[in-house]
């Protein structure tokens, strides 16, 4: 076409005009740390694995999850999911049911026999792990992944630590526990059962271990002085729960008094209930002061466990106990009132906490113990070089997930230490706080509630109380994730840019800015639902 000069122009020729020069600020893609990830004691990339679950790729989600935590089926049952407490969605309607999706993935993995990634090439290094609880087994898993030879010494007859000898079956079915433990063993972890390590340095020397990770937990029940008669039956919760795993079930009688207010007290009371008893928990403070999680208290109450708040045991007789009523003083401490009451009791179970058995560490130089736990440095190493420790035996809040996290962290440090290096954690991204989100874009979606076993069976059997999600509900729940701080390919930035300055790179590849044309209006930043774009000043 012999087009008229200047008046008629060739299509798209404005590409010659680089409007990027107008910019005073530029958008940059960032990954912010989702609050859940930041909170997870095991350091799971929750948003990351949910991303895959959202598209129904559960195996990929599971693989992503197990990079950090090899026990999703266990986590999905007994983890206290503090991640959900900080979930940004909680400010919108209700937190994402992270834990229930995790369980779904864990169960799927067991059902479908998904395999963990095989270990890296063998390094020739040999690491000793003492204790096959969550912390020890987590460390074993991660160390194996690095290609180190791992041997676990376990005093007990089975793997799992407190998960097996503390947590009752109705919360954590043993087939689930076995499956997830076995998967780690199948990676080539050597296990030596029924073998208590008495002296760590001896064992290391004999076995020519290059390093050790100690995770012996806290198994010595704390006692309280209660004046009691000859025949009165006073036992500790840990031994009751442990004996539930063996042939000889404990004989507690019909009227069981549980003394304490933690999760252990609840577990033991609920166990007693299932064995036909009428348990009563005696606790010195009020319900809201109980260290046990409220959902556990609630479940116990539903099942018929009775609780006497603001009470202490004054005396234990043959067939009854005397309790004293308490009241809280101005600072919230319980004070005796001098009012007494008598309760019938066939037995008293003390659930007052546990201490660590540190006998295997006797004589180890450089070691520091305070408050009955072993001090470790930021790298999880004790005062003895090459000896690391984690889980309940170090100063920490005691729960499985923290133990798993310690195992991972220790493994990374041990790996570095074995190479003569120091592990440096990658810098953490800025947390994706709620104010960074544009929540308009998220569709309204109420949380999915997990099914509960019917009450009759909860009172009389050890069947699992809480059910899991099915495929469709798990998918729904995964899709409630806001993907805080991490691009989930919603295409908003690609769409809303008035200057087509966002380049879509394709599924899974995210986006790129075309700074030749980006004028820096900030619309993409404002309309990114999850806060994955940041505006930074242009430095000429």
């Amino acid at each position, binding site marked *: 076409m012999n087009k008229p000069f*200047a*008046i008629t*122009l*060739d*299509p*798209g*020729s*404005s*590409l*010659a*005009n*680089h*409007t990027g020069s*107008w910019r005073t600020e530029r958008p940059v893609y960032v990954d912010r740390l989702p609050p859940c990830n930041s909170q997870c004691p095991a350091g799971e990339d929750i948003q990351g694995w949910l991303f895959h679950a*959202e*598209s129904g790729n559960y195996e990929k989600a599971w693989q992503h999850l197990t990079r950090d935590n090899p026990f999703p089926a266990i986590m999905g049952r007994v983890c206290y999911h503090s991640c959900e407490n900080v979930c940004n969605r909680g400010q919108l309607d209700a937190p994402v049911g992270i834990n229930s999706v995790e369980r779904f993935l864990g169960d799927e993995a067991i059902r479908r026999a998904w395999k963990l990634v095989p270990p890296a090439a063998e390094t020739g290094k040999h690491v000793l792990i003492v204790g096959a609880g969550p912390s020890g087994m987590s460390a074993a898993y991660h160390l194996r992944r690095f290609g180190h030879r791992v041997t676990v010494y376990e005093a007990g007859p089975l793997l799992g630590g407190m998960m097996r000898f503390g947590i009752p079956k109705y919360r954590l079915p043993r087939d689930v526990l076995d499956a997830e433990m076995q998967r780690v063993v199948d990676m080539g972890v050597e296990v030596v059962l029924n073998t208590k390590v008495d002296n760590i340095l001896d064992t290391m020397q004999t076995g020519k271990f290059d390093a050790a990770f100690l995770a012996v937990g806290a198994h010595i029940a704390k006692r309280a002085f209660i004046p009691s008669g000859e025949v009165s039956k006073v036992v500790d919760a840990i031994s009751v729960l442990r004996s539930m795993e063996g042939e000889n079930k404990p004989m507690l009688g019909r009227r069981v008094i549980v003394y304490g207010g933690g999760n252990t007290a609840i577990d033991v009371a609920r166990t007693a209930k299932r064995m036909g008893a009428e348990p009563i928990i005696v606790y010195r403070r009020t319900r809201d002061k109980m260290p046990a999680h409220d959902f556990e208290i609630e479940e116990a109450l539903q099942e018929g466990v009775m609780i006497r708040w603001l009470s202490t045991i004054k005396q234990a007789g043959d067939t009854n106990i005397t309790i004293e009523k308490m009241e809280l003083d101005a600072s919230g401490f319980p004070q005796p009132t001098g009012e007494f009451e008598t309760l019938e009791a066939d037995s008293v179970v003390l659930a007052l906490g546990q201490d660590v058995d540190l006998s295997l560490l006797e004589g180890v130089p450089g070691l520091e113990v305070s408050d009955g736990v072993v001090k470790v440095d930021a790298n999880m190493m004790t005062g003895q070089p090459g000896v690391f420790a984690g889980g309940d035996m170090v100063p920490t809040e005691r729960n499985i997930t923290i133990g798993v996290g310690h195992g991972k962290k220790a493994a990374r440090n041990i790996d570095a230490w074995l190479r003569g290096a120091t592990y440096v954690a990658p810098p953490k991204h800025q947390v994706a706080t709620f104010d960074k989100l544009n929540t*308009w*874009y*998220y*569709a*309204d*979606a109420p949380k999915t509630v997990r099914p509960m076993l019917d009450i009759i069976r909860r009172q009389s059997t050890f069947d699992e109380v809480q059910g899991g999600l099915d495929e469709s509900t798990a998918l*729904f729940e995964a*899709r*409630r*994730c806001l*993907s805080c701080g991490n691009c*989930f*390919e*919603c*295409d*908003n930035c*690609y*769409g*809303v*840019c*008035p*200057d*087509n*300055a966002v380049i*879509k790179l*394709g*599924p899974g590849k995210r986006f790129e800015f*075309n700074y*030749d*044309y980006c*004028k*820096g*209006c*900030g*619309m993409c*930043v*404002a*309309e990114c*639902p999850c806060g994955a774009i940041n505006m930074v000043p242009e430095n000429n």
Partner: protein
Amino acid sequence: MSFQPVKFYQTGTFTVGNRLLAPQERSVQANMERTNSLNSGHRACQGCGEALGARYAIDAAMHATDNQLIAANATGCLEVFSTPYPETSWQIPWMHSLFGNAPAVATGIAAAIKIKRQKGLKDDVRVVAQGGDGGTTDIGFGCLSGMFERNDDVLYICYDNGGYMNTGVQRSSATPPAARTATTMPVGPQPGNVFGQGKFMPAIAMAHEIPYVATATVADLRDLEHKVKKAMTFRGARYIHILVPCPLGWGSASQDTIKLSRLAKETGMFPVFEAEYGELTNSSKIRRLLPVEEYLRPQKRFAHLFGKSPAVATIARLQALADKNIRKYEMLDKEAN
């Protein structure tokens, strides 16, 4: 809702794309191969709603017509920022003639296409005309009405930014009451644009009983695309009126363009609906009803309402207009409330 929204896939159909949707359910704008009918390098202000709306609409029309589309454009920002010699941002056959004649030019194009098809042209080429609110509701009004009345096979798209922006923000008949423009300054006893004037072109379009009339905003892409595509299923005159915030004229932050579009609807200041043959057939429901202040406050053109002593009475009058829209265009979901 003008289309079947996806109830829940993380973002449902609120976002531009949604990787969880089947490809055929995704928006045109989410497509890697979208036409970018209005390409980069145009000279619109940062955050220009009109530039965005035009690409949304024309890309959707291109999609709907299998790229067989010709556009006529009225004078105004869209024309000026897209086609200053020696460069054009348009990738489609496009023509600018005058400020007030885009509908008639489009009629001519459509008529020519009709004859070409009679003479053997195979492509089903469709025609859009587009212009600003000034070019539409004021100077182009006669030509637009004529095009409507003859039911010419043209989709007319009005990009309403509430004023003559290209000439430096003067009042048009689409400028909202109380708004400051260069010709309705916030001075005197009745600062800003007066109440009781102005016209709402979509309602006038409906009065022509043309096959299809719709309104949309750049905040709801799915809805906008759906309407453009739907418009393309009709033959005859069609009209889509898109609210496009103008950072320059509204005195708003460039990143707030979409937010303001959203607020315009959520406060009831701008009704989003569809009509066929003169009858209202559907209206987009307000998701989270908000008072008009939320919409007014971020805009400097309303700043005089929020001085030391807020113009409570004026704000109430604007709220009353919003309430009327909500009633008249059934903007609240009765079932949900």
